[in-house]
């Protein structure tokens, strides 16, 4: 009953200074909401990266050209011949399929719509499986299309939407850099990882792209699919051996190409997003702390202002614990209501995507932020409350 009484006194105390109480709560609200929201943004981007790891397939390897450090000779570029050597090698059972890749950029035209896709890729049909690109409508281009350098293209979902809007793109003709392409298919959307859009592509047969844009020199990458996720290491050593042969290299420590496997690439990026999350969390935690200091400040002011009242209450026989309880209840109410509204604001806010990242709320962050805010209220409120409660009645009464 005394506890109920303390809460009533506390509510009365807060209601007496509505603006001040509201502003203090706002401080806590912003602290809690920013912890929840910023962690959700950080988490959202790492969730997106994780999803793209699984969507890319874990058994694909990317071979790219690299200048060997310390070598005087210029690095030999990767060529279609390298890819063919890998594909035709009989002593490399771990290599399942090979797709040389050239990338370029250009503006695509359809009717009077002009759009610049993120990437124009020239490759072999094996690319689709290796890069885990699935067709949504129409069909992939075929090996025959590659052999005959047909002017056909498969569009990523973003590119298709930009060029065709609601129209059906299949069979339509688009022009890229003066070369007409017939659209044979549209890929399934993979979804943005927040940093780039894998759906913003045009994929066409390798010789067609080389003929129209890049010329028949080197290729940018060779995408290799290992026979399974377990044989990627084996495939990696096979590739190294074969390419050292075609590039006439002796020293395996000084090769002019680099093999990266998707998983390691993406886990590196995942660790970047973790750092990002931690940084965001730190910023948010600071704002939560500032909110807590706000509570202390307000409670100190409140206690100072009401010292006389405390003296009266003590003279009427209020036990120390009741005075302490009243002020603690006030600061806890401030922090609980502020934190509760902050949780609400954070969760509502996380329904909107922030800088292209869809926030994913971490349940622990909601509980944690709420608990920390309430603990801060209790902890920082207890100092002024304790000061108030331990005053001798006469000293409190004499306070001006």
């Amino acid at each position, binding site marked *: *009953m*005394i506890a109920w*009484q303390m809460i009533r006194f506390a509510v*009365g105390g807060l209601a*007496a200074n509505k603006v001040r109480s509201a502003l203090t709560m706002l401080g806590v609200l912003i602290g809690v909401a920013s912890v929840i929201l910023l962690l959700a943004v950080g988490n959202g981007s790492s969730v997106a990266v994780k999803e793209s790891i699984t969507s890319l397939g874990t058994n694909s390897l990317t071979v790219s050209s690299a200048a060997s450090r310390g070598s005087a000779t210029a690095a030999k570029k990767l060529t279609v011949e390298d890819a063919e050597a890998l594909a035709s090698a009989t002593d490399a059972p771990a290599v399942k399929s090979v797709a040389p890749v050239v990338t370029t950029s250009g503006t695509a035209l359809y009717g009077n719509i002009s759009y610049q896709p993120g990437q124009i890729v020239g490759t072999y049909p094996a690319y689709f499986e290796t890069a885990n690109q699935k067709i949504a409508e129409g069909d992939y281009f075929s090996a025959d299309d590659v052999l005959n350098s047909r002017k056909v293209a498969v569009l990523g979902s973003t590119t298709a939407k930009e060029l065709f809007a609601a129209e059906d793109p299949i069979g339509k003709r688009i022009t890229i850099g003066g070369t007409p392409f017939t659209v044979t298919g549209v890929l399934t959307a993979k979804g943005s990882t927040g940093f780039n859009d894998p759906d913003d592509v045009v994929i066409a047969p390798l010789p067609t792209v080389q003929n129209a844009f890049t010329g028949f020199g080197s290729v940018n990458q060779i995408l290799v699919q290992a026979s399974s996720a377990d044989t990627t290491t084996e495939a990696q050593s096979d590739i190294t051996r074969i390419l050292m042969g075609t590039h006439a290299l002796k020293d395996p420590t000084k090769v002019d190409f680099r093999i990266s496997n998707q998983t390691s690439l993406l886990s590196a990026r995942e660790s970047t997003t973790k750092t990002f999350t931690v940084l965001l969390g730190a910023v948010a935690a600071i704002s939560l702390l500032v909110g807590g200091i706000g509570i202390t400040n307000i409670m100190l002011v409140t206690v100072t202002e009401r010292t*006389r*009242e405390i*003296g*009266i*209450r*003590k*003279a*009427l*026989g*209020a*036990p*120390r*614990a*009741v005075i302490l309880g009243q002020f603690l209840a006030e600061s806890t109410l401030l922090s609980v209501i502020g934190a509760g509204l902050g949780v609400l604001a954070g969760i509502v806010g996380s329904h909107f995507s922030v800088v292209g990242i869809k926030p994913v709320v971490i349940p622990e962050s909601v509980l944690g932020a709420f608990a920390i805010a309430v603990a801060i209220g209790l902890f920082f409120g207890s100092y002024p409350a304790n000061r108030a409660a331990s005053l*001798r*009645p*006469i000293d409190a*009464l004499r306070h001006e």
Partner: protein
Amino acid sequence: MSTGKPPVIQIRRVTKSYGHGDAVVHALRGPDGPDGTPHGVDLDVAEGDYVAVMGSSGSGKSTLMNILGCLDVPTAGRYLLDGTDVGHLDEGQLALVRNRKIGFVFQSFNLVPRTTALAQVELPLAYAGVRAAERRRRAMAALTLVGLADRAGHKPNQLSGGQQQRVAVARALVTAPAMLLADEPTGNLDSRSTEEVLGLIDGLNARGRTVVMITHEDEVARHAKRVVRLVDGAIVSDVRQTPVDAPPPALAAEVVA
């Protein structure tokens, strides 16, 4: 003087000083001892007595009263309330004493701001842990006693000075304390309100409560059974006007008239 029962209030060699060194102020000192040091104040108040404490400004009246009300502690000396040494009580026990044994009426009302008269009067009961319904009933009864039943919902800033003082009296007597301590309860009041408040206090004393009251006015002191005068922190005179077990003089006069 009634014998047998021990005095409610016994203070022995109580001194109170503020400050240090040359700047020290002896608010309560009593007569000087043989060696020149303050001997301290001695005072006994019997149960049912009605004492007026008088003296010029700064003579230590409020200081004495605050010590009697357990709001302040003496620098030296002992204070026995109902036979228990107050100096040996801890915080919690002191709060209990203030709540149950003492009703204190302040010179400056000291009502809790932004709180209705009824809630003011309920406060000591709330701290005593009395249930809400019972609390309301008793607070209403106390307000009725001081003639403010119709002002129960008013906040201090909606009450006149006299009404505020009467709320303070109601608050002091609602727990039915054995002892009523009033520091210039009529200091801020006009003669009519003074009569009202004094009438209340006389009535309480007639019903057996011990009253100690500070006043500057002889008019007010005439209501008491005993008048104690302070000069510079020492008791210089202690005059009994009426026996302890007789009704308060003002009420007795009324009966005669």
